[in-house]
């Protein structure tokens, strides 16, 4: 089983978001970058499948050299090798074209992405990859079993879940459910040492796609002070919701 796992680099979830350069740039100073949490579920599932069925797990990241710590982390968690496409990830379509290009030259049976990245929340990459490569994508995917050349997958539909099946290869948009949080692997010393000797290939960007340019960032308006209501007077809350907020 040849498995590819796409990982993106995002600000840690506790990051207080702020901007510099006349609000044209994200203020990354002091920000810790992590593997997009959804991608870790994919990476963990990939490693479990490798354990079961044998094969290799390659991680791929589109981004500058300064993002390499997240790639090393993925290797320390257990991926066999890594590829970095050396360029700024300007948007989901650009990322998808770069990854697709790599996949065309190195075929894979299974491709994991996250269901979305938590910085831009596009959720575009798995489906754009699917369209470019003509391989089905299921995202978000909350269950995956491989039997022979078939993948059995579970996704969300209105009011619940749907089980689907398809022949490999398939693209899987990962999230919790694919594996549980308790299955996520924290790299140990051995893994960290090993990760330094694992291959990390750096390739040049092939496409020149840029479908959006940041003009300006804005923070949401400050909340006005919270109106406190006495716990003994819930009727007042009801009346505020009816007459002031007009929501009920």
């Amino acid at each position, binding site marked *: 089983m040849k498995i590819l796992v796409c990982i993106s680099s995002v600000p840690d979830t506790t990051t207080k978001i702020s901007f510099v350069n006349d609000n044209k740039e994200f203020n990354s100073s002091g920000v810790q970058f992590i593997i997009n949490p959804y991608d870790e579920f994919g990476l963990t599932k990939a490693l479990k499948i490798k354990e079961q069925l044998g094969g290799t797990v390659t991680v791929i990241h589109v981004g500058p050299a300064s993002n390499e710590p997240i790639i090393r982390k993925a290797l320390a968690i257990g991926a066999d090798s890594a590829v970095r496409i050396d360029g700024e990830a300007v948007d989901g379509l650009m990322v998808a074209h770069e990854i697709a290009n790599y996949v065309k030259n190195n075929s894979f049976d299974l491709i994991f992405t996250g269901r979305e990245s938590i910085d831009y929340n596009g959720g575009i990459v798995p*489906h754009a990859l699917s369209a470019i490569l003509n391989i089905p*994508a299921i995202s978000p995917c909350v269950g995956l079993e491989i039997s022979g050349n078939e993948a059995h997958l579970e996704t969300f539909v209105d009011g619940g879940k749907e089980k689907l099946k398809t022949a490999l290869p398939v693209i899987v948009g990962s999230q919790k459910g694919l594996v549980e949080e308790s299955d996520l692997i924290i790299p140990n010393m051995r893994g960290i040492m090993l990760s330094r000797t694992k291959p990390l290939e750096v390739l040049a960007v092939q496409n020149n796609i840029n479908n959006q340019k940041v003009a300006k*960032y804005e923070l949401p308006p400050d909340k006005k002070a919270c109106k406190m209501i006495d716990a003994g007077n819930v009727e007042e809350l009801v009346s505020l919701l009816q007459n002031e907020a007009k929501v009920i």
Partner: protein
Amino acid sequence: MSVVVYIEINDGIIKKGSLEAASFAAKLAQEKGSKAVAVVIGKGGDASVLGKYGIADALHYNLEETQINSLTVAQILQSEAQNLGATDAVFSGSWIAKAAAASLAVHAQMGIVTEVTELPKNGTILKKAFSNKAFVKVELQNSKNCYVISANSFGLHENPVNTNVQEKTSNASSGLSHVSYNKDTSKVSLTDAELVVSAGRGLKAPENWHLVEELAKVLGAGTACSKPVSDAGWRPHHEHVGQTGISISPNLYIAIGISGAIQHLAGVSSSKNIVAINSDPEAPFFKAADYGIVGDAFDVLPKLTEALRKAKG
């Protein structure tokens, strides 16, 4: 030239997110002096209700639910976008709509912008970023674009017209085959819900959730929970809201016994009105809320439910 909008219909009922997309498409078409056409995919019903939101033309594909997946929907939209010479395509933020948008953008070489909150203006458009923690204005680099709307941010805009509905058939097929469903349709869908009642670890144990459900029932609200609550299996995963769960922006979000961690707020802070009920006056949620009650949930909830029942007659 036209603006195409993807509409999801199920048993004759159009999803609320789709109506919002229809409103967006109708306004966009009006501004551009072009025509909005709805591509309605799903079983049954009455696509003519789209007229209420300014859509005069609808194409209805009466597909069985089991035939509908991201690939078949993408195929239909792609061929209609081509037939109609679409310059713009509008999508709700549902998973299947996002998938269709991404696929159309690739095949028709259009740009794509997600989490959109407003109509494009002079070649720029506003969207959410960093899990609701910020907005970003982007300059569109492409003359043709797909817009994926952030739920409940644009709103429904009535502009009644008559809708001409044309029935269509499709032989769209995909390498994906349906196996089975596992559904509970008795509940209000969280992303579509106007009102949401949500609870956290402050509720102490799963057997106390009847207090939350009774409140939700009186309001006709959806129910949600914080991450540790779903992690512990007290509530199903699909109720987990926040940065790593579902992101929602209902008209009213009532948070009970939830501390208000930054990751939780990321998923709910764009709710139009927030009520926090917490026994700790220092709970961070009060900084993000419009209305607050410092009190014990076990005492406040039954009273609030009763007061609402009375008020609603």
